């Protein structure tokens, strides 16, 4: 509201405001306001035409009343009238009212738009700015429709005043963000980009925000901005501190503009043009050099402004990740900042170095600062700085320094702030596992974790240590000994009791030879903790006890007595009571053999990516870890703790299942895939109950194949893959079962299942003739790079296939890391003396290892934004080669393995999906967006993932499906 000054005083308004302020009660205030509203209403309705001043005064009062929280349902017309006033203050109040109280009253919008139009064409810069601010403030679709065409013209016109250009640029940015479809830059693109050359720095500052936004959305159209930005930057960087006059801040030329230019360049890969690139590298070097020069001023403002540019330059260097020399220099510069007395600089340096650590060029250079960072972790007084130090230690960790870093983080944990303990625990657990050379170190580390920060050790962490101990028999004895020792402590954390109970229950026998840890000693030790534990832990301990009975028959009597005691068998907790009763019964009824079977040692867990990592990602968001997406549901598998164990126990005692496997933790064991082997001679397609129609279509296709390639290839070497094999491969991208290949002699069917990073494929070779195939031999090979990416194992098949019979072959696949090629399947056999030699591509594609991820719209778009670097995205625009039926599309997208997210994309025609590709080395989060255009019969497919090769591959695969 305008100030109440002498010349422009609206005395009536001042009186009204002070009246309101003097009101003693809410009722009095409302009464006063109603009186005023009635007064204004009568003035507006009165016969006498109000002059501009009165209108302004009353509209101001209405605004004030509205800002006090009352509804205003009139006065709009008067406010609109003010827009056409020639007095600045009247116009200003009019626009203020419109900006605050505009509604979609169409009649009014037309009038407002008219007034705005007049102001825009008035050539009065003040009025033009008011109008532009109003458009930007309202930013509605109607406004965009009316002015999106006009504003670019104003922005680039030669005679537009600088201040108007500034407002126009940001107004256009606002409209573009709100309604991108209405802002068509087309013909203006080049002239907007050339604003980077504008003489006026303020115009460049404003325009660059617009250009950065437009570039990030349409990088190709705006790529000419790179060379312009570089030359602008170069001019600023090389200018003397007095050249830019008012845009120099404490002897630093145009610091804000420099930052923005450097930020714009981060939308693009390094310039291809050698000259431009050379100039840019020169700029970056100059900026790095300036950091070493003596400061031109002792003021902190000078160094801050200088360093703002420096940090932005380093971000760009990291973004390019291609100039080893600059990367190392950046690292050295940051290294200096690590010891700077300014906390802000230390904080930013730690953060920046974190990203530097992931570059292959600078990883080693970052590692040289380990002592400083460890010191920061110990001595920094600000928790947020310490947290950055911990992040950096995590990022710089590799096999060479893992022991040191883990030890330091562990010791820091003892005094760490509560707010970051859980995250620290996860990080230590991950590093310990990732870089464990000997697993006894790993076990020690995790047990230390539980000892030091037991409360912050989540289930994932202790599940994981158990998983690893069970899967690695070289560490079991050590683990048993270590937990036994750890449990000696008078007060140990409940998580320690859980781990101890589980491990002694499984492997207590490995240390039972020592009289100091005899079975009974072990049992008494565990049981001494029992009463201090929560119900789930007690349940787990009871399961451990029954395992003891099996491991050590000599403890049977003691344990039965414990189970029989009232506190167990009549426990008020149903779960505990049931376990006590059933275990007691089991131990007294079952023979030793049955008991040994039921309580057999746990089978190894399937190898898979640590769920701890997922948890950390969930806590930290991307950036903290190499993998960008977590699978929220992954921990589900490991979940269940004690209570699921109960189910297994019940199942065990009833002996109703053939392999109770004493699933102590409710963990899923490697149950064989329940593929039913069809009897030989049955019709082959019967196997693929759900693949009926597709199997026929495959058959049709194969007829074509037969005419083009003779089935006899007389060579003993594996034949080159059939020319059709890529096409055949594509058929299986979105489905797992069907007929892979068929000719006159042979039909090959596939049935496959994937879980996590593991897959199992059943191949069915059917002899279509009545004559037997001899020397039937199949081999699966991974050509080239694929060898290190996929682990494929298979057994040989019988060399004889009777006429009309079918043989089955199982192939186990483990995905080690992401891959592009497919494994080759070669089949050789003799039919009537002639050698048949066929090579096909096995339809194992990267998407098979997708795990669907459900997420809400907000999460989706947040992640989408996080994956915004150009190389993380792959996009294809292609013509539909099949119908565009919604249900078919959905089925295909689901078949891809991702989760199809409903109600996420604002446009209901579009499809968005999310999934995580599980490989042994890492998880790669993938987001997908498919935009069909029914009219043009085209699709646009966009893939974003944390790994460029994955985005590209999935995009390529999927583009062939529609």
């Amino acid at each position: 509201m305008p100030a109440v000054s002498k010349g422009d005083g609206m005395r009536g308004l001042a009186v009204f405001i002070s009246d309101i302020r003097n009101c003693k009660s809410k009722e009095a205030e409302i009464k006063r306001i109603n009186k005023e509203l009635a007064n204004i209403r009568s003035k507006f309705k009165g016969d006498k035409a109000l002059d501009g001043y009165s209108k302004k005064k009353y509209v101001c009062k209405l605004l004030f009343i509205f800002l006090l929280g009352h509804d205003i349902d009139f006065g709009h017309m008067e406010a609109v009238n003010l827009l056409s006033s020639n007095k600045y203050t009247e116009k200003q109040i009019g626009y203020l009212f419109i900006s605050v109280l505009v509604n979609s009253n169409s009649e009014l919008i037309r009038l407002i738009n008219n007034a705005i139009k007049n102001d825009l064409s008035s050539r009065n810069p003040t009025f033009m700015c008011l109008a532009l601010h109003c458009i930007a403030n309202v930013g509605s679709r109607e406004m965009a429709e009316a002015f999106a065409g006009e504003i670019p013209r104003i922005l680039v016109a030669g005679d537009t005043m600088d201040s108007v250009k500034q407002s126009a640029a940001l107004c256009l940015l606002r409209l573009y963000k709100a309604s991108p479809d209405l802002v068509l830059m087309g013909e203006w693109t080049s002239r907007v980009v050339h604003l980077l050359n504008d003489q006026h720095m303020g115009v460049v500052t404003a325009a660059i925000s617009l250009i950065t936004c437009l570039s990030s959305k349409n990088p190709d159209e705006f790529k000419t901005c790179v060379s312009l930005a570089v030359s602008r930057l170069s001019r600023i960087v090389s200018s003397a501190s007095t050249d830019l006059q008012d845009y120099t801040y404490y002897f630093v030329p145009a610091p804000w503009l420099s930052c923005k230019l450097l930020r714009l360049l981060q939308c693009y890969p390094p310039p291809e043009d050698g000259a431009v690139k050379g100039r840019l590298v020169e700029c970056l070097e100059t900026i790095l050099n300036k950091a070493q020069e003596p400061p031109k001023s002792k003021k902190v403002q000078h160094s801050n402004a200088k360093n703002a540019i420096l940090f932005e330059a380093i971000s760009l260097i990291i973004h390019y990740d291609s100039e080893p020399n600059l990367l190392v220099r950046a690292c050295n510069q940051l290294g200096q900042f690590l010891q700077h007395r300014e906390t802000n600089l230390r904080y930013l340096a730690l953060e920046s170095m974190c990203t530097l650590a992931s570059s292959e060029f600078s990883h080693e250079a970052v590692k040289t600062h380990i002592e400083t960072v460890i010191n920061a972790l110990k001595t920094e007084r600000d928790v947020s700085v310490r947290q950055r130090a911990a992040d950096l230690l995590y990022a710089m960790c590799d096999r060479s320094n893992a022991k040191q870093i883990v030890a330091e983080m562990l010791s820091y944990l003892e005094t760490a702030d509560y707010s970051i303990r859980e995250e620290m625990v996860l990080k230590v657990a991950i590093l310990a596992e990732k870089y464990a050379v000997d697993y006894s170190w790993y076990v020690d580390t995790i047990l230390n974790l539980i000892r030091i920060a037991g409360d912050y050790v989540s289930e994932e962490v202790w599940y994981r240590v158990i998983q690893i101990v069970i899967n690695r028999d070289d560490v079991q004895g050590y683990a048993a000994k270590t937990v036994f020792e750890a449990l000696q402590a008078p007060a140990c954390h409940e998580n320690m009791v859980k781990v101890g109970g589980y491990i002694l229950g499984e492997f207590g026998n490995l240390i039972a030879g020592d009289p100091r840890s005899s079975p009974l000693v072990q049992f008494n030790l565990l049981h001494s903790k029992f009463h201090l534990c929560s119900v789930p832990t007690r349940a787990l301990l009871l399961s451990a006890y029954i395992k003891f009975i099996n491991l050590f028959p000599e403890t049977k009597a003691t344990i039965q007595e414990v189970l029989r005691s009232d506190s167990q068998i009549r426990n008020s907790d149903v779960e505990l009571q049931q376990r006590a009763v059933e275990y007691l019964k089991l131990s007294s009824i079952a023979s030793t053999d049955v008991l040994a079977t039921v309580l057999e040692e746990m089978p190894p867990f399937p190898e898979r990516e640590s769920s701890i990592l997922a948890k950390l990602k969930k806590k930290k968001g991307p950036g903290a870890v190499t993998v960008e997406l977590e699978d929220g549901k992954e921990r589900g598998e490991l979940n269940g703790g004690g209570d699921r164990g109960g189910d297994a126990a019940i199942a065990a005692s009833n002996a109703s299942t053939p392999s109770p496997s004493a699933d102590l933790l409710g963990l899923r064991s490697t149950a064989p895939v329940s593929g039913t082997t069809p009897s030989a001679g049955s019709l082959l397609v019967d196997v693929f109950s759900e693949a009926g129609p597709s199997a026929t279509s495959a058959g049709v296709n194969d007829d074509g194949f037969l005419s083009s390639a003779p089935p006899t290839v007389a060579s003993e070497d594996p034949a080159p893959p059939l020319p059709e094999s890529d096409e055949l491969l594509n058929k299986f991208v979105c489905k797992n079962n069907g007929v892979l290949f068929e000719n006159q002699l042979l039909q090959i069917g596939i049935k496959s299942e994937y879980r996590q990073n593991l897959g199992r494929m059943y191949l069915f070779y059917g002899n279509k003739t009545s004559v037997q195939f001899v020397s039937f031999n199949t081999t699966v090979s991974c050509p080239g790079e694929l060898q290190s990416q996929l682990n494929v194992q298979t057994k040989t098949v019988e060399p004889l296939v009777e006429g009309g019979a079918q043989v089955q072959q199982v192939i186990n696949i483990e995905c080690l890391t992401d891959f592009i090629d497919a494994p080759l399947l070669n089949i050789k056999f003799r039919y009537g003396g002639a050698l048949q030699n066929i090579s096909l591509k096995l339809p194992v594609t990267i998407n098979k290892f997708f795990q669907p991820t459900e997420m809400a719209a907000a999460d989706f778009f947040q992640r989408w934004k996080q994956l915004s670097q150009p190389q993380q995205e792959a996009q294809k625009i292609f013509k539909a080669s099949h119908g565009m039926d919604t249900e078919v599309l959905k089925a295909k997208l689901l078949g891809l393995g991702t989760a199809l997210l409903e109600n996420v994309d604002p446009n209901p025609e579009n499809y968005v999906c999310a999934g995580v590709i599980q490989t042994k080395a890492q998880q790669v989060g993938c987001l997908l967006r498919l935009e069909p255009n029914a009219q043009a019969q085209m699709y646009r497919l966009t893939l974003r993932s944390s790994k460029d090769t994955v985005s590209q591959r999935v995009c390529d695969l999927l583009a062939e499906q529609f």
Partner: protein
Amino acid sequence: MIKFLLMVNKQGQTRLSKYYEQVDIEKRPSLETDVVKRCLSRKKEECSFVEYKDFRLVYRQYAALFIVVGISDTENELSIYELVHNFVEVLDKYFSRVVSSIMFNLDKVHIIIDEIIQNGHIVETNKNRILAPLLALDKMAEAH
């Protein structure tokens, strides 16, 4: 992008707030209280950037006045930190005693901010140009 700018006194009362991203009026007080609490509780030697939810706070203290800016990760912290100082210097140039003056001239402070930041983006950093419209207004008022 700049999400909001707050001017707060030592007691944690908001003196001026400017939002560049839609935040419901009802939610603003709790957001402001929370944001201010985080910044006020920090000691002098602690760093001026605070992670907050999915964005960052940059704050700077001038005697009893705190200025807090919420930014997305596309902004450069140090440059915002100095932008605040630049802003304060403009206030200083216009008002003789910043801390007490701004309370009584909030409209003018708004005009100044609008010249520096528009739609969440830095638009002008030249002090003379920032003040030009305000000085023109004052002239008009006198001429009246």
